[in-house]
């Protein structure tokens, strides 16, 4: 059971980002990192957006972050959302990847309880075709060590 219906679109990996999606299938979150200027960036590009270097690698991050901003969709923008209750879309600022943000859903927070700054932790859920994609759960002080497999 995923946060959104199973007919929603799934990721389409490209030459630039296949390792990101591959890591997700192993329930690991990896982010593009520039070795030239020592910055993370996202989404993956062939060159660093700060210095254009191609000396890039992938670094695994903790998956912890906070809600940077959010909205709640009340409108069926996709046929499979017809009749679906309102759902959140959040931008999560990762704790340990410079200013990198992921667009995602926070799966266990009701719309009225969403707030900017709320601590969250990555989890992985199947999208429509079964590809695992990163979503997030609320992170309490007592659960922060449980990690992404919770």
């Amino acid at each position, binding site marked *: 059971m995923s946060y959104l219906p199973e007919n929603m679109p799934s990721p389409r990996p490209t030459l630039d980002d296949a390792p990101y999606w591959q890591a997700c299938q192993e329930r690991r979150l990896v982010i593009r990192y520039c070795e030239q200027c020592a910055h993370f960036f996202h989404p993956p590009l062939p060159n660093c957006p700060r210095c254009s270097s191609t000396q890039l690698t992938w670094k695994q991050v903790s998956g912890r972050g906070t809600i940077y901003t959010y909205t709640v969709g009340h409108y069926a923008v996709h046929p499979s959302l017809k009749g679906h209750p309102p759902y959140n879309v959040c931008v999560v600022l990762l704790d340990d990847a410079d200013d990198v943000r992921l*667009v995602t859903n926070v799966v266990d927070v009701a719309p009225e309880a969403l707030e900017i700054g709320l601590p969250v932790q990555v989890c992985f859920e199947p999208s429509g075709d079964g590809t695992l994609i990163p979503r997030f759960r609320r992170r309490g002080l007592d659960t922060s060590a449980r990690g992404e497999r919770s």
Partner: protein
Amino acid sequence: MTFPMPNWPRELQPCIVGVGETAYTKRGGHQDKSELALCIEAIHNAADDAGIDAREIDGFTSFGFERHEPAVVQTALAAPSLRYASLVWGGGGGGCSGSVMLAASAVATGQSRYAVAYRSLCQGQYERYGQHRERLLWGSYVAPYGLMSPGLMMALAYRRFMHETGATPEHLADIAVMLRANAQHNPRAVMRDKPLTREQYFASRMIADPFHLYDCCLETDGACAVIVTTRGIADRLNRPAVPILAAAQASGPRWSLGPMGSHNMPLDDYASINSREVAKAIYAQSGLAPSDIDVAQIYDAFTGLIPMGLEDYGLCERGGAAALIASGALRQGGRLPINTAGGLHSEAYLHGLNLVIEAVRQARGDSTLQVPNVRHSLVTSGGGTGHKSALILGRAEH
């Protein structure tokens, strides 16, 4: 100061000499005329306004999402010569003022005598922008999460803007009610005779929190066009000619597709519409300051773009938009009236080219909600897409 270069010869300065539009209807309202037919009708109307034969047009510009190619438009106009044709990159409205910039550059450098910037759009005959469409670049990072419409994308930016500046949903209501009130004076407006109250605004259904239905622009069928030529040619037309004092396209560093992409623009730029660079460019070109602007048409695909736009264009300080809105300065009779024909919110959604037309009318003195003594008329283009563009128009000369 002049566009495109300081001290550009007077006779080569670009001026807007004609504007034209079809009837604007809600989505699906044009059943008897194709989108292309409307496109040609709008260009004919603009040519009539300029006092020229449409077959004299030899330059053709538009911006992303236009469906009708210049060579087709040329053929339908029976224009013998196409000498210039170009399209500004980007989806939606970001390139709108840029298309007028291309037309201006073409005439100023002698590549065209009369260049038309046009937009035809029938969401009733083609797809709806508020529904999911496949995105080639980075759709993987947004579509699986249900981030599929411009409303949701801009709601994320506006939520952050509220957090950083103290703006509230009350300010959105102020804007929605004001835009609808402006449209009541405009016989072309789709929402004429449909005034909006605060109660109706807050009672309307939520679309993308904090955006209600009445924070979203219209879905329109129609077309419009703007004709540009040089001052030297305009002098012989014996019609009002509106000089283009500044025209620019720009994007800030690391913006990429901004909120239409993966939301990784720089943190201190996030709650903006990526127009700080284009604002710098138009003020530098024209030698003007924000305080010189007498009337503005701010791209309003969503009400929330207006407060962010006011700040990006320096029309108030960072964090000052909420107070400016609450002061009433943006309304009819205020210090800086905006979107005086009703905007994309209440006149028509033609990806912003109708805002250019209203900016021209303000500069000519023939708007349906005319601001007295307009010297400098600003129009801005784009909210969420990649790069942005803008124009400053000067008072019409006859």
